[in-house]
């Protein structure tokens, strides 16, 4: 696999570290626990342990540790290993810089 880093260009996948599915969102304890401890617990259980384990195109986090050290979100087909778009992860420093025009 080769990954087209938006900052560094196409690099071999060994430069990157994988985190996994980008879709689970960390629950906001302050909000979710208002309804009681049970719903918050359920939300965290879902976030920490349960996975869609997509067979097909999945949005996932990759970290370019061997390059620009940016967190990226890549679209990749888990059945064929084919990559789609690769963009900076929202909130990553590089994105903020890009938005500020630097």
């Amino acid at each position, binding site marked *: 696999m080769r990954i087209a880093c938006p900052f560094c260009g196409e690099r071999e996948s060994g430069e990157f*570290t*994988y985190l996994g*599915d980008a879709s689970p969102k960390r629950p906001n304890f302050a909000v979710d626990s208002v309804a009681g401890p049970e719903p918050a617990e359920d939300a965290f259980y879902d976030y920490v*342990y349960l*996975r869609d*384990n997509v*067979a097909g195109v999945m949005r996932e986090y990759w970290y370019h540790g061997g390059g620009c050290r940016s967190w990226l979100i890549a679209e*990749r087909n*888990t*059945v064929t290993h084919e990559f789609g778009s690769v963009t900076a992860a929202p909130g990553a420093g590089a994105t903020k810089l890009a938005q500020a025009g630097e």
Partner: protein
Amino acid sequence: MKYSIFSLAKAALSGHKGWTRAWRDPAPKNHYDVVIIGGGGHGLATAYFLAREYGIRNVAVLEKGWIGSGNAGRNTTIIRSNYGLPGNTGFYELSMKLWERMEQDLNYNAMVSQRGIINLYHSDAQRDAFARRGNTMRINGIDAELLDAAQIRKELPFLNYDSARFPIMGGLAQRRAGTARHDAVVWGYARAADQRGVDIIQNCEVTGFTRINGRISGVETTRGTISAGKVGMAVAGNTSRVAAMAGMKLPIESHVLQAFVSEAIKPLIPGVITFGAGHFYISQSDKGGLVFGGDLDGYNSYAQRGNMPVVEDVCEGGMAVMPMIGRVRMLRQWGGIMDMSMDGTPIIDKTPIDGLYLNAGWCYGGFKATPASGLAFAHLLARDEPHSEAALFRLDRFRRGAMIDEKGQGAQPNLH
């Protein structure tokens, strides 16, 4: 047909023309008491034990390809029971005991060879951890032996003892561990299950579940709808996909693990060796090829093939521990899809859906578990309660915080 030295001699004298097929090729019936999805080692072993131990013979094993075409035919054939945590220790020892009598039970040569495993250690801390694991094993009646460098050098003189970075200080040996012929295990269980009335139906992919009042009542397949009293899933690698047909989301990710075999050479490695400073393990098949592997590739995959960085990593591990491996040529390399659970430990349990049972999350330790997995899953299917040695492999352990995390990595499947 009973296999023996006499049947072999008789067939040899008649030009090997007298062999009959080892199992039938039946068309699916309309109804079975138990339908098992997945004709790998675990599914076939489950069917065998259902018929032999629990008297349930109206059983079908549905396989989307040919039996043993998944991970049962892709693993590195190692069997061992050197686990340290409650839940694992007893379960894998049960499996080891079943391996030891499997060939007699099945009347099939599975080439079970107890040639031993040595896990090398390379630091004081690792020695302490291995001593602890060895003690845990011995307390539980499992053989374990802590060896120092001089003892290992006598057995395995070809290793790189004086590496400045990863000196070999010793190892933990389990002499009863070894290897078995993975395809023969599949065929042996298939034949023995078939003899007891189990229908093994190949080229039959499950495409959905049928339900009556919420309860699973059968499966839809590429060869028609089959009704079932109970349905068991033994589809490691594709568990999430099959569970999704029933509307379930599981604590499992699918990852690719690569394995490698070299050209055949004369006998060199007596048992199984693992490198403790990286992730590398190696044994030699009876054909002479060096069979080895290492880490997962690390990203979710259903592709049954991996990528170069891990090939490089595995070969580096090999060169570090056993430099002469650089002189043999690699023959083949392949990938299998691992059912990576969130704590690195399997699941054998009922699902929240009535009539649907789960055997999953084998990570990359499924092969050695084959007989015990079959027995425990058969017990669960027959009795509706967990087998005593698999009682901790529950689906709800993640919610209860009762993880069995042998490696201590937390909920990060690609690190287990």
